[in-house]
């Protein structure tokens, strides 16, 4: 009998294909846990499990019951949405995973700040505000420039910079409305406000095994992220920052993972670097989001998802290294709200030397919503080259060939 993996995925997942392909390649059976009923589940009862992400305790019991008749060797969540549930289920089943408490803290930006403060990290000024607060009443007590962010959303959703009280009040109200409209208001009725930290943004992709962090990649983000919204665009690895700073980042990530209790699984750390100092923005208890994982390739052509599955199964992954070539991804920003009517220049973009693929992830005719409210990109460009600067140039050139027709509604 082959090992079976429970893969918990959100309905809007980008990563089903990559995880399922990796599992198939490794000969692993998969049960997919989702929050909505799946087509054809009657034909493959062991292949599907309906879960309620809003009730992790009940769903963890559902998983335990399932595991009694269909043994599970690993539990993984593809995104933040299922991460808490995956951690609780893995803990109950005694499977390799970050602790449920660590995942809970890491998914809450305020709890993360508190844990890092307690561990002695230098922190920006920060304060958690209830959505019931009167923003005008607290605006004078805020340190400017500041950044407002929902406590529990990923991918820069709802993150807004404010340079003065008027901008703060507007941002607060905008986030409140966004949380109300997306149904997140009751689940997390808070906004975190913290001092804006100038400097370059950088990300570390890591894998923790028995409390020991292993660096998989450091990504530079060469586009300035200065607000008012913080739309991610280009990620390039390896980093071009000085090695000393990279070592500092790694040590910071290892300490942060330890402080949060993330001891067995992937982490994705976002930080700002300024004058040789590293300021942690967040430590997600999962791997890099969207389709960005495609930019990472490991020994023998193994994908990031393949590596994570092997790790979750308790297999040795220490000898698996990232390829030596430079690689990168560009998340294609949404320039305006509306309905996507067409994409021009795809062939020209794909012909740019170094470009490996272009994925348009929003179908023609579907609505598009830019940040801070939106939670999707138009698509992804992937590139590989001998050096990071060539990867970045390829991504920028390819993007310049693309034009998107968006009809305002």
């Amino acid at each position, binding site marked *: 009998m082959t090992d079976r993996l429970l893969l918990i*995925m959100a*309905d*809007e*997942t*980008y990563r*089903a*294909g990559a995880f*399922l*392909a990796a599992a*198939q390649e490794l000969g692993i059976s*998969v049960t*997919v846990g*989702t929050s*909505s009923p*799946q*087509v*054809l*589940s*009657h*034909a*493959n009862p062991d*292949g*599907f499990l309906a879960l309620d992400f809003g009730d992790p305790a009940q769903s963890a019991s559902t998983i335990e019951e399932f595991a009694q008749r269909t043994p599970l060797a690993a539990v993984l969540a593809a995104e933040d949405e299922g991460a808490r549930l995956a951690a609780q289920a893995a803990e109950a089943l005694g499977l390799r995973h970050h602790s449920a408490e660590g995942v809970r803290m890491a998914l809450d930006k305020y709890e993360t700040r508190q844990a890092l403060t307690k561990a002695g990290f230098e922190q920006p000024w920060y304060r958690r505000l209830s959505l019931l607060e009167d923003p005008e009443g607290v605006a004078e007590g805020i340190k400017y420039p500041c950044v407002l962010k929902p406590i529990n959303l990923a991918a820069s959703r709802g993150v807004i910079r404010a340079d003065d009280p008027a901008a703060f009040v507007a941002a607060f109200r905008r986030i409140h409305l966004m949380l109300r409209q997306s149904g997140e208001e009751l689940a997390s009725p808070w906004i975190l406000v913290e001092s804006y930290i100038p400097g370059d943004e950088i990300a570390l992709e890591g894998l923790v095994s028995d409390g020991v962090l292993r660096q998989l990649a450091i990504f530079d983000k060469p586009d300035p992220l200065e607000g008012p919204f913080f739309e991610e665009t280009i990620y390039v690895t390896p980093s071009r920052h000085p090695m000393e700073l990279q070592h500092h980042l790694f040590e910071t990530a290892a300490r942060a993972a330890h402080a949060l209790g993330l001891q067995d699984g992937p982490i994705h750390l976002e930080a700002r670097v300024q004058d040789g100092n590293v300021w942690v923005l967040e430590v997600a208890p999962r791997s890099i989001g969207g389709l960005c994982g495609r930019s990472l390739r490991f020994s023998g052509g193994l994908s990031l998802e393949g590596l994570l599955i092997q790790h979750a199964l308790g297999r040795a992954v220490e000898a698996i290294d990232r390829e030596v070539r430079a690689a990168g991804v560009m998340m294609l920003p949404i320039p305006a709200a509306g309905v996507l009517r067409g*994409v021009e220049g795809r062939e020209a973009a*794909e012909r740019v030397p170094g470009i*490996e*693929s272009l*994925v*348009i*992830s*929003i*179908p*023609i*005719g*579907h609505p598009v919503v830019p940040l801070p409210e939106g939670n999707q990109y138009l*698509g992804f460009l992937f590139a590989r080259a001998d050096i990071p600067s060539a990867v970045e140039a390829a991504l920028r050139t390819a993007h310049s060939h693309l034009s998107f027709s968006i009809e305002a509604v």
Partner: protein
Amino acid sequence: MTLKATLARKNAVVEQWNGEGRMIEFDDAAREKISELLQSEDRRGKLLRIQILGRGPDDFRYSLRFIPPAERTADDLSIESGGFEVVVDPESAPNLKGARVEFVENAYQSGFHLENPNPMFQDPLEQSVHEVLKHKINPGVAAHGGFVTLLEVRDHVAYVELGGGCQGCGLADITLKQGIDVMIREAVPEIQQVVDTTDHASGSNPYYQPAKGAPAPGSSPLARN
């Protein structure tokens, strides 16, 4: 294809039809309706082209249209059908043998209908996969507004296309790997893998847009026949 090869292929198809009865038949209502349509000024002297455009989830996709004689090509096959001429391209011809064109008109519908006794696929393996899709998979997928079409089987790999509500759906990969793939391989053990060729970002359903370096299946929807 050279002229000689084209003629040889055409002759082979014609011989096969002549030896095994009429290629396409028309019921009286269809013949009358076509004759009536050909009386209009803009259609007078035109030919009726019947063509298979590709395969849908349940049946071939057909085209019936009037064309001026100048649009007839050298390798088209011609059938005199009692008052009008029908032309068929040689790729469509083998799959139209014995087909019957009917004209249906009642309170609920009006139009031409093509009753085709030919299997969707000549290859038994492809036909088996198609039967699984048609009878076991598509009824379930249809409940979610989608459908799955087999394009071809090559080297024990079934290439399918997802349409309707499946196209662009983030969960299509799950449906494919956990449902479609499992059901096809269980029913047709010769199949080792099922590959989704849908361009999920496109508003149309292109036959296949391979990723760089990926092999492409046959270039025509009917290439294997």
